[in-house]
């Protein structure tokens, strides 16, 4: 766990880049009081503060929906881009390709990613664009007043009483199948699990998918819903206790390899996973089996299902310059007169 060394008030205590937690805040939220999304916003703020990432080095990206409003509520010192519905992944891809020096955080929802933006979700994962992709998943269309989304569980009951007749799309299973090298699930109310998951995801070099069940207090928090606070709290089974040890903190050598998996990240940080359920988080097939079994038995699992720290991000696959493309000088982006003449000669 990356708790600051001394018990201090982070709101007034600068981190290693001289910023207090307050400096990581954003505009006041306009979401309903009690919305799960607002909790996630707080976890995001904690993670950036603890990771000592200056906000101006962050790009915030989102689509359309309640979830996609949230980037306005954290890191007001970072440029943000509220794109069109379901199309955030393409905008994020362009942004990430253009400037590889930025830390990218993307916030989407279940409608945004599992319905209208399913194609773009699939393809950003497939390309392994470096970013943390958080799905604030409440199984419902909030802004349009309570329709089922594609992640609603079969048989889950709508506020008006209708039951959902279609199988849910599990974005974690889908991401695993697509070859995603960082796949986790959490619950908006679980700060202890979420903050290290966000920190780990932000430290991951490729696409990190984090599906967060985030109850909709207004339209999907009733009896019979499988995305209500009560249902999730009653059924949440963490597969491990997760901790994030930043690169500047020495790793405790006493971890018992029998009970704790330690994942070393390329930047020197570590993810520690203390076993609750028997699962190897570095085995993709095991992760898929785990989720298939959980689906059959009706269990709701959370944790980091799979991680591959040796992931090869998109930039390396297509071999683009180390210097961010936006910073290339004119002589690097406009070939010489001699080069043009050579082309002209070949066309004569």
């Amino acid at each position, binding site marked *: 766990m990356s708790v600051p060394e001394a018990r201090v008030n982070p709101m007034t205590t600068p981190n290693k880049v001289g910023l207090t937690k307050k400096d990581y805040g954003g505009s006041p939220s306009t979401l309903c009081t009690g919305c799960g999304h607002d909790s996630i916003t707080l976890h995001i703020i904690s993670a950036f503060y603890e990771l000592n990432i200056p906000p101006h080095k962050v790009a915030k990206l989102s689509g359309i929906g309640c979830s996609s409003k949230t980037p306005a509520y954290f890191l007001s010192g970072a*440029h943000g881009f*509220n794109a069109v519905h379901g199309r955030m992944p*393409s905008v994020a891809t362009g942004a990430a390709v253009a*400037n590889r020096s930025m830390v990218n955080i993307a916030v989407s929802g279940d409608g945004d990613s599992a319905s209208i933006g399913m194609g773009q979700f699939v393809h950003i994962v497939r390309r392994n664009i470096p970013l943390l992709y958080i799905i604030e998943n409440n199984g419902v269309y909030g802004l349009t007043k309570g329709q089922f989304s594609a992640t609603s569980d079969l048989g889950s009951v709508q506020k008006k009483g209708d039951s959902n007749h279609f199988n849910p799309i599990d974005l974690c299973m889908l991401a695993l199948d697509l070859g995603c090298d960082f796949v986790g699930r959490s619950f908006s109310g679980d700060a202890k699990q979420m903050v290290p998951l966000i920190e780990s995801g932000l430290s991951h070099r490729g696409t990190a998918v984090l599906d967060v069940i985030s109850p909709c207090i207004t339209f999907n928090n009733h009896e019979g819903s499988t995305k209500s606070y009560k249902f999730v709290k009653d059924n949440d089974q963490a597969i491990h206790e997760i901790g994030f040890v930043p690169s500047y903190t020495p790793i405790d050598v006493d971890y018992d390899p029998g009970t704790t998996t330690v994942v070393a990240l390329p930047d020197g940080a570590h993810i520690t996973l203390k076993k609750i359920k028997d699962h190897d988080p570095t085995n993709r097939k095991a992760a898929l089996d785990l989720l298939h079994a959980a689906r059959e038995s009706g269990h709701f699992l959370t944790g980091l299902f799979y991680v591959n720290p040796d992931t090869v991000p998109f930039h390396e696959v297509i071999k683009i310059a180390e210097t961010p*493309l936006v910073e290339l000088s004119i002589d690097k982006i406009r070939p010489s007169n001699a080069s043009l003449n050579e082309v002209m000669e070949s*066309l004569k």
Partner: protein
Amino acid sequence: MSVKVNDFSIHVATVNGSGSQSSNNVLMRSIFRMGIPVSGKNLFPSNIQGLPTWFTIRVNKDGWAARKAETEILVCMNDQTYVEDVKALKPGSVVLHHEHMSVPALRKDVTSISIPFSKIISEACPDPRLRKLAVNMVYVGVLAEFLGITDEGLELAMAQQFKTKQKVIDLNRAAIVAGRKFAKEHSEVASFPFKVEPMNKTQGKILIEGNAACALGSVFSGCTVVSWYPITPSSSVIDYFTEYAEKYRVDPVSKQKNFAIVQAEDELSAMGMVLGASWMGARAMTSTSGPGISLIAEFTGLGYFAEIPAVVYDIQRVGPSTGLPTRTSQADVLFAAILSHGDTKNICLYPGSVLECYEFAAKAFDTAERFQTPVFVLSDLDIGMNFYMADPFPYLEAPLDRGKVLTDKDTEKLATYGRYADVDGDGIPYRTLPGMKDRRGVFFTRGSGHNEKAAYTESGVEYKNVMDRLLKKWETAKSFVPAPILTGSGKNRIGVIAYGSSNEPMMESIHQLKTEAALEVDYLRIRAYPFSNDVKKFLENHDVIYVVEQNRDAQLLSLIKMEKGYESLLSKTESILHYSGLPLDARYITNHVLELESNKQKKRIA
């Protein structure tokens, strides 16, 4: 029989996938290498192998490069089409054909030259597997002998086509020699009615397709992010961008690329990547055609309203829907201009030559960044995928215009910063880029309602402020985009407006009208939307204005009709429309102008 020198068309009918493209290129370039102006047009199916395809080489001593409706020499290599192809010929044409094609039975008024292609190629090419590809070189040899194409021209053309592949060159040369030998023994060689004679009109010139020119312009204008989805006829823009960028934009030491090309899952995503990259501060573009334009409507609206640069090449084909994917049109003109729901106006450039495809690439990036908006370069299949002769392109010396971008150094301007505030009175606000440290310059980009400070708003007043400023920006753009070009004295009674690939046939038609009908017209070539005031003046100064377009619905004229203050002038306009999917030809325009003029004459007399 009189001999026509350096003024005829060769129409080659083959089957696609048969390797005829190489033969046709060699034939065209060999004539070009003799100093004679040529142009090449490819009429191809939406198919990989087995369907009919035609390639037309126009040889013209005066340099006219538009499609010519009539063909003088037909080469029939395709059993499926030869009957129709022969029937369409004008009397006096020459047909080179396979022995089994009964051309004389079809037409008595054309010259039939029967060629034992199979026999010739089996002798010239010992390997039966290669004969299918090499057989097309036989007609090159036959024509070379009949027309008087030099060996030197052929060798230069082959070297260019096949680069250093010596075995391929040897094989093709053998086929050409065999074709020549056949022609020499043919009794008609002396009386062949068409000849080429060396000229000096192509010295130093290049032959290039518009799509290559667009790509080259982009590579030399600092475009660093390209995203696209394959679609005919625009894919070759990306193929050429890749080729040139891989050669000239890769670091020689690290081998790393100073550009990124991302093949997207669809055009929506391609446009999203362009906007994301542009938002980050890179020069980014996508290239597509009609169906892709339909898909990017949503993102275009975002780019317009959130004011994010983007360059979009639209290599127009025939719509609606899938339409005729391998035929040309100018039918996206209206759609591109107002693409997106809500009140939207998009800057469009209409390149009228391969040189302009290159120069407008640079102009498009400058305009997109200066005006912070999507810019559409409306090329088409005719200009994009056909070969045109041009002078070598000049080096782009002008510095890149990156527009109004504030950085951390601009502390004074940042003190009162508002992303969408009109500080300079030209409607163009200042933008900042991600990575900025000064929090006063940081803002949140959104396609929802926003005020001058980029904050979310549902206020009608604030919304209207933004929309009205966008109109002001539009006014500013009028004097920045390429101005129309006037050909003629400007004092003639008749005016003609055309744009894009209609320029070649239009120029030729003006020549025809003058030399054949003693009719002089003024021609205004529109090169961009928004229109400058020159368009209005042109309408004012002429009694009648023919607007020539390659679409059914008079789309550019519709845009002209949308202009304020043009109302009283519109009754003077008349459309000449061509929308068969084939490139426009001069004769079509000439005939229509003469017919419309003659109708008016009759009316006046009546």
